[in-house]
């Protein structure tokens, strides 16, 4: 860091995590501003959880380093821990303790002073709508309430950074919305939120997202920026019958996957204009009736698909050179 430069809230510089020969995280560099809601995207096994474990000081990076608020993520991990809240992927609170007991326990463990702990817990119970269930054992709660409690336990000490590993997996849309509203509230209060997900619908709700694939950070930007790159790459076909079309059209040259969306076949194409021209010349599917086509508006699912197929990555590389 150069003198006079404002320290980054969170900075990863070439983080690497190896498990034996397998590289889980490969040369990851990332900067976060305070108050961001950063979505860390990627398919299962991309290295999201490994990154989080390094960030929380649960495991040491094999190479590279990272800082949070200027503290090294490994050497100063105890400093960071009092400023960090972590909500792991699976429910990790005490199922045989009540909501209140869980909250009290974590308040003590985080060293929240007794007087303020009481206020804080009451405030959280109100904010999370958990007050009526405060004497219910955590194990008896529904999935949504469990997750709210997990987040509550992680923000008792008002952390500057809240890390959530797939916080909404397995929740219904209603609970999902509640969780996201809470995250926005926290962000408004100044907490930086680092959330992993492979739900693209949720990725759209982040202020910025990073896309991790096979341990490599392929892209980082706002959802709008990422979608921008796919404009004019997406075609929506109206064909009959749909299901047959979905599998047949996947094998067209220059097509990276087909998906059924709102009664249309959505194609991610290498060169859509050329593809249309070729198809007009020769429609190779006698069994399918082609009614119409249009250029689609990309969403985060398309971005995910594009990264999964590698075309966005290739495109990024070519523009970088």
């Amino acid at each position, binding site marked *: 860091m150069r003198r006079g430069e404002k320290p980054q809230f969170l900075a990863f510089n070439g983080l690497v995590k190896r498990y034996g020969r397998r590289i889980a995280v490969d040369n990851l560099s990332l900067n976060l501003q305070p108050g961001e809601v950063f979505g860390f995207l990627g398919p299962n096994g991309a290295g999201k959880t490994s990154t989080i474990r390094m960030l929380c000081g*649960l495991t040491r990076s094999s190479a590279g380093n990272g800082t949070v608020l200027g503290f090294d993520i490994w050497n100063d991990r105890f400093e960071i*821990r009092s400023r*960090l809240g972590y909500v792991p992927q699976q429910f990790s609170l*005490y199922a045989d303790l009540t909501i209140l007991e869980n909250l009290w326990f974590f308040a003590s463990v985080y060293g929240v002073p007794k007087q303020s702990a009481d206020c804080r817990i009451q405030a959280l119970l109100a904010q999370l709508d958990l007050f009526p269930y405060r004497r219910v054992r955590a194990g008896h709660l529904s999935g949504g309430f469990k997750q709210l409690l997990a987040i509550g336990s992680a923000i008792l000490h008002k952390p500057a950074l809240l890390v959530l590993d797939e916080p909404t997996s397995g929740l219904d849309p209603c609970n999902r919305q509640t969780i996201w509203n809470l995250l926005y509230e926290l962000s408004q209060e100044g907490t930086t939120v680092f959330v992993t997900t492979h739900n693209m619908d949720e990725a759209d709700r982040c202020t910025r997202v990073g896309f991790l694939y096979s341990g490599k950070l392929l892209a980082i930007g706002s959802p709008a920026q990422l979608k921008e790159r796919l404009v004019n790459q997406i075609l929506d076909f109206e064909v009959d019958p749909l299901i047959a079309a979905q599998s047949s059209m996947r094998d067209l040259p220059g097509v990276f996957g087909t998906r059924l969306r709102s009664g249309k076949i959505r194609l991610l194409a290498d060169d859509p204009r050329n593809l249309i021209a070729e198809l007009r010349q020769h429609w190779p599917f006698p069994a399918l009736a082609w009614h119409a086509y249009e250029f689609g508006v990309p969403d985060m699912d398309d971005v995910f698909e594009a990264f999964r197929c590698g075309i966005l990555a290739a495109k990024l590389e070519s523009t970088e050179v």
Partner: protein
Amino acid sequence: MKFLVGKRAFIAVALKELLHLWRDRRILMLVIFLPPVFTLLLGHAFEEGPLRNVPAILLDQDHSAASQKFSALLRSSEVFNLQPVTVGAGSQIELSANNLTAAVIIPRGWEKGLHNGDPIPLDLVLDGADANTAPEIQGAVQAILGEYQSKALESMIDSLPDEVFDLGRQLPVSVRKDFSSSMSPWGVKASILYNPDLKFIHFVMPGIVGLILQLFTVTLTACSICRERESGTLTQLQVTPIHKSAIIIGKVLPYLGIALCVEAMLFFLGQEHFHVAFRSPILLFGLSFVFLLSTSGLGAFVSSFSRTQTQAIQYSVFFLLPVFLLSGAFAPISQLPLGVRIFSYAFPLTYFCHACREINLYGGGIARVIWDFVLLSLSALLTCSIAAYRLRAVEV
């Protein structure tokens, strides 16, 4: 300030642990009711003093006055519980088939032999499967026979004609003295110290109490840490500022406290029910504290290389099995061969049993047991430190 956070944190962990125990009533019941039940069972099993009620048969093939007298003596002793089993003459005696441990046979012509100056030995058939009792039974029969012999001697002397005594008076004094002393049975006058009733319970009580307490401190501590590892709460704890050593201390303390209470209960039971004296309560409390600290530490240590509660239980069982036999809980370790005895010194129970006997049986002071204290404290420190260090190393 940082220390204060640590202190509050480990108290929080300890309280939470008690809450878990309170919620899991089955374990709580086991912890409260099993130790006294085991103590009663094992205590009565090992309470036995001298040999009694050995199932046996007596075969009198001589049918003489002497054999009748001897039989009466044998019946009046409490060593044997004589069974009415009849065995055909000359046939092999089947001990196990008749649930017998011994057969005493007075052979034909026994009385004749005694009168002819050519005594025939009694026949004794023993079940040698239990290597300890067989010689004990032999000794008991020998003792009864000795009693019979001294009675016979008395009646023989009484019936001697006066001429013999007149004749005897002519012998030199020294020869007469030698003669009369050789005619009377030579005895041993035993003063039994430390355990005058010769009741095994006095020796075995520390072993019973120590084994029971060790069993549940090791397994409960190990399981309580592994349960957190299984449920992922350990990871959740590890991202909080709590120090690893505070987690271990918070885990060990509640079980240590409970074990101390249970131990007090067992000692009280031993005193009231088995009349085992417990001297120097302060010294015993100190000893129990370091012993239970080291066994809880052992539990924490076991947990550090088990990922699940199942593994923790399995490792504990493998560890506890040799302790049963090698720690000197039921037999003094001085009877073990040297090569085996070395392993005995690896178990905290060995030191606890030794020190507890020093204090209770021998009335020894702190000087006699200082090494047991030192070694137990060191092992507690060592196991807890390793457990705290390795708490990080094993990841989910």
